[in-house]
């Protein structure tokens, strides 16, 4: 069976499980007594094991198997969950995470060696087992060495049937622990309908006795009814043949049942007649695979959604085109149907968009671990508080979000939060808090990273700006604090002593800014000395279709994203004042800068005398407003953003282009850079 089709599904689910492990381990660190958490980790490890072995990723499978063993001991209260164990389990998590990353990039888990970790895990178990084993079972306890030898032998025997490492592991191990391993061959009655459901019952009944480690055909194939009338399973159980036979006797529509014990002692095990796992590696996790397929949700390759989105885009272009035909307004029927078409395409667009949305949780879940490690490294006490982690964001944004956020969080812990001693001295609680918030605001999703640390010293930043020659002393004196702050996002603005004496806040913040802007978003910062720092990231909900206002500048059409427009005004030209070179206008009790798009965009001269009344679009960029002077309004419509391609990527004031209904092209202005 070709597993490549399942790869993305595997990655997705494995990541979820892995995150779950990490999150729960961190919880355990706080409360190592909570049995339900241990259960949860155990389940995740178990699921991971099943998936990894199905995909043939043996290093991952065998490591998770070892983890499971340790967790099982903990679960049975045979082993105390010491911090050392948690640490080791976290290391295992790292290992698995790296494997997954490799799988994602190359399709294989890489050549990593997990034996050291496995050894480490084993050492915890053998500590606990040494006593009871010797007391109870003389035979087994005789010598560990013998066990080892035995194991080697068994593995060799079983390798005849080409089981994978993990399956051999289980079989040989269970032999040592006094389990029975049976090969069970089942033939269904010839007129059996719904064979997969029948097989499901068999699996379910057998699993009441023990664990099914392999099947032929694979669990997936059985589920898909890709088998004749017979199938085989390998069951590891504490029960004897009679019990197995009894359980199967009570399942209906079975023609025959053949049970052979796979002995771990005999010279030649009777496994030759099973063709288990010859080419496929069966999943021992019948239950999980079944339920995942029967759930109400399905997983879809993101590429397919992309192409669906693309098609919706094309549909919107066509709709715009019909609407731009002047004649259509005269025909009442046509008008009605086009309006209806408009509503449907809008709904369709929204639905597709929603399908692409995923909760930011996916990214947020990584942070507790990062914060734990950083806190340990820097000897600070840090608590993370997340809010709104179920806020949904477009999938393509999520993937890009993690890096800048990690950057900001690192910054906050490294430079923002003070040491325990300092905090106590300043009358703050010993533990520093980092807040991670997400919420929707209009067409944007907002993500905030806030700490209650020492904040930034604005005067020192001013000094540094002058020192780095980013602006002259005079100008910087006049610029307001907000603008001064924006300098810390400048590429050159690094430094040690600039901000605090620990190290320079702002290291690499330009990277964050670039990344966020590439996503069409903006970053803001607000801070106060010793009050902490807050970074606010604003991102568009989606990247491909937006509502826009079309305007005319000279004879050219431009699109302004509706989300950033506050209002449209008509102003007298004498209302505009000049301060030095900058034109300003009074807007709701505030002086805001006026930008003449004609000048900014250098549109062709049209020699028309400036009219007395100007049309001005008030746009907002974060908290600030700007007035854009345009020549004419065209209208509001949904537009499809087409990228300008790499050659034009440097033109910052234009974020893309769109095709209008009449086939002409309008450039989409990026408000963040225009203003």
């Amino acid at each position, binding site marked *: 069976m070709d597993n490549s089709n399942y790869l993305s599904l595997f990655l997705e689910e494995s990541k979820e499980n892995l995150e779950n492990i990490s999150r729960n381990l961190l919880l355990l660190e706080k409360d190592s007594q909570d049995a339900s958490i241990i259960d949860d980790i155990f389940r995740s490890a178990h699921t991971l094991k099943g998936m990894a072995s199905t995909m043939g990723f043996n290093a991952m499978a065998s490591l998770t198997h070892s983890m499971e063993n340790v967790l099982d001991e903990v679960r049975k209260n045979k082993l105390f969950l010491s911090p050392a164990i948690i640490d080791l389990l976290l290391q295992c998590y790292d290992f698995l995470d790296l494997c997954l990353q490799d799988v994602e990039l190359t399709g294989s888990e890489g050549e990593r060696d997990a034996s050291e970790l496995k050894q480490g895990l084993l050492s915890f178990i053998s500590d606990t087992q040494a006593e009871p084993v010797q007391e109870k079972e003389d035979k087994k306890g005789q010598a560990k060495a013998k066990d080892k030898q035995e194991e080697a032998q068994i593995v060799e025997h079983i390798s005849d049937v080409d089981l994978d490492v993990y399956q051999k592991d289980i079989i040989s191990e269970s032999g040592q622990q006094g389990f029975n391993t049976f090969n069970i061959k089942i033939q269904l009655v010839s007129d059996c309908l*719904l064979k997969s*459901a029948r097989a*499901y*019952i068999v699996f379910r009944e057998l699993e009441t006795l023990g664990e099914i480690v392999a099947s032929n055909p694979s669990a997936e194939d059985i589920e898909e009814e890709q088998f004749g009338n017979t199938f085989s399973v390998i069951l590891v159980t504490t029960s004897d043949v009679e019990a197995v036979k009894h359980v199967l006797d*009570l399942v*209906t529509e079975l023609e025959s049942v053949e049970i052979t014990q796979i002995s771990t002692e005999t010279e030649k095990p009777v496994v030759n007649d099973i063709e288990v796992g010859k080419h496929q590696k069966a999943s021992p996790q019948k239950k999980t695979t079944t*339920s995942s397929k*029967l759930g109400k949700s399905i997983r879809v390759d993101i590429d397919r959604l992309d192409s669906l989105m693309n098609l919706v885009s094309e549909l919107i272009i066509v709709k715009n085109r019909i609407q731009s035909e002047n004649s259509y307004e005269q025909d009442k029927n046509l008008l009605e149907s086009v309006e209806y078409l408009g509503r449907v395409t809008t709904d369709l667009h929204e639905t597709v968009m929603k399908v692409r949305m995923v909760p930011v949780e996916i990214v947020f879940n990584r942070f507790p671990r990062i914060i734990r490690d950083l806190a340990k490294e820097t000897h600070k006490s840090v608590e993370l508080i997340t809010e709104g982690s179920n806020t949904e964001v477009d999938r393509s944004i999520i993937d890009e979000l993690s890096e800048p956020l990690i950057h900001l969080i690192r910054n906050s812990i490294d430079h923002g939060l003070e040491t325990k001693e300092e905090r106590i001295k300043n009358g703050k609680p010993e533990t520093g808090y980092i807040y991670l918030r997400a919420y929707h605001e209009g067409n944007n999703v907002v993500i905030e990273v806030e700490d209650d640390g020492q904040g930034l010293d604005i005067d020192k930043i001013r000094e540094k700006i002058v020192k780095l020659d980013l602006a002259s002393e005079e100008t910087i004196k006049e610029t307001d604090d907000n603008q001064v702050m924006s300098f810390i996002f400048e590429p050159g603005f690094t430094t040690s002593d600039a901000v605090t004496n620990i190290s320079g806040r702002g290291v690499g913040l330009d990277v964050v800014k670039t990344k966020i802007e590439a996503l069409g978003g903006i970053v803001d910062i607000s801070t106060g000395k010793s009050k902490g720092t807050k970074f606010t990231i604003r991102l568009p909900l989606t990247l491909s279709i937006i509502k826009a206002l079309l305007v005319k500048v000279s004879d050219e059409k431009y699109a302004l994203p509706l989300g950033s427009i506050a209002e449209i005004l008509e102003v007298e030209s004498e209302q505009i004042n000049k301060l030095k070179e900058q034109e300003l206008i009074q807007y709701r009790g505030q002086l805001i800068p006026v930008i003449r798009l004609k000048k900014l965009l250098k549109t062709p001269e049209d020699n028309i005398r400036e009219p007395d009344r100007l049309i001005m679009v008030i746009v907002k960029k974060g908290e600030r407003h700007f007035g854009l002077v345009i020549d004419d309004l065209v209208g509001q419509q949904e537009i499809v953003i087409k990228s300008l391609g790499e050659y034009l990527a440097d033109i910052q004031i234009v974020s893309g282009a769109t095709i209008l209904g009449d086939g002409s092209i309008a450039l989409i202005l990026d408000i963040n850079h225009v203003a």
Partner: protein
Amino acid sequence: MAKKILIVDDALFMRMMIKNILTKNGYEVVAEAENGLKAIEKYQQTNPDLVIMDITMPELNGIEAVRRIKKINKDAKIIMCSAMGQRSMVFESLQAGARDFILKPFQAERVLDAVKKATYS
């Protein structure tokens, strides 16, 4: 002692057929119900050894009824009775805790086999 059985199906015809098969072979049909809600009610009243449950029914479908009966008694024994082409529903009810399933149109011996095995104790 004869095993007590509750038959649930919205079609009277089906209930009659099953009842016929069962009574002829020494089982006691203690109650019948025509939808899931009634089934739960009758289950509590009669506490049968086995329930034969249709899947598609008005008011409350068989799958949900299985879930609720299982909540009342986790050892309740239930055999689903389904028309062909309800693969996913059969799976769902098995996951909900049904023990076995028989497909319509059914043969008497299949029904009896399933009933016998389900009530074996």
